[in-house]
C-alpha cells in the first residue's frame, strides 16, 4: 500500500453508491499496524421533507485531479497508513450516500485531522455543484457556496498538526 515516501491513496468519482464496510476492509483487513480508522460519510438530507433529490454535476477529469491533489497533501502532512475518497455525481435522493472519506493511521489524531481536512477541501475546492430539486417546485435551485465552508478550509492554512 505504500512506496518509500508516502502512502498511496484511492480516489474515485462515480455515479454508483459505495460500500463503507468493503472500502474500510480494503484499508484495514489483515493489517496489524492500523490503530485508528476514521470514516466520514456525507448523505443527502431531505431538508425537513421538502427535498425530492439533489443533482450533483461535476467536471470529469478535473474532479479526480483536484481530489487527488488534496489526497496527496494529506498523505504528505499526516502519517496515514491508508486513504480512500469516493465522491458520487448524478441524482441522489434523500438518505443516500454522497461522499466517503476513510483515513487510517497508527494514531487517532492523524486519522481525524486528515479526514476533516479532506472534507473541508472537497466542499470548497473540488469541482462539484449541487442543485436542489424540491417537491413543491418545478425548477431546481443551485445550492450557494457557504462562507462557513471557506472559513473551515482556511483553518488548515496554519500548522494544525501536533
Amino acid at each position: 500500500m505504500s512506496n518509500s515516501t508516502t502512502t498511496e491513496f484511492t480516489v474515485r468519482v462515480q455515479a454508483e453508491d459505495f460500500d463503507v464496510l468493503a472500502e474500510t476492509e480494503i484499508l484495514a483487513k489483515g493489517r496489524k499496524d492500523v490503530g485508528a480508522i476514521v470514516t466520514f460519510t456525507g448523505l443527502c438530507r431531505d431538508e425537513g421533507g421538502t427535498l425530492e433529490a439533489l443533482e450533483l454535476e461535476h467536471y470529469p477529469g478535473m474532479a479526480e485531479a483536484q481530489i487527488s491533489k488534496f489526497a496527496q497533501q494529506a498523505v504528505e502532512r499526516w502519517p496515514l497508513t491508508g486513504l480512500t475518497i469516493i465522491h458520487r455525481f448524478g441524482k441522489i435522493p434523500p438518505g443516500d450516500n454522497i461522499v466517503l472519506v476513510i483515513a487510517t493511521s497508527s494514531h487517532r489524531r492523524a486519522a481525524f485531522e486528515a479526514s476533516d481536512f479532506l472534507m473541508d477541501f472537497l466542499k470548497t475546492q473540488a469541482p462539484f455543484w449541487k442543485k436542489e430539486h424540491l417537491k413543491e417546485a418545478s425548477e431546481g435551485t443551485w445550492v450557494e457556496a457557504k462562507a462557513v465552508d471557506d472559513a473551515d478550509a482556511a483553518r488548515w492554512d496554519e500548522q494544525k498538526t501536533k
Partner: protein
Amino acid sequence: MKIRYFAWLRERTGTSEETIELPETVKTAGELMIWLAARDEGYAFAFEQPETIRIAVNQEHVEEDHVLSGTEEVAFFPPMTGG
C-alpha cells in the same frame, strides 16, 4: 480552444462545451469572459457578475489575469458546492 460551462453557467449560456477560435484581442481569461458576455443575452446573463465566476485552465484553477495561448481547455463555473 475548448470552453466548458458548468452549473448555472451551462444553463444560462445554453452550452456545456464549445470550440472557439481565440480572438487576437483577447489575452486573458478575464478578457475572454467580457468577450463571451457580448455574444448574446444568455451569455450576457451568465457573465453578468464575472467576479463570482471561477476559472479553470487545463483543469487547474486560475485567476482572471491568467494569459491564454489559445490551445487550452478553459472552464467557467460558479463557486463549488461538493462534499
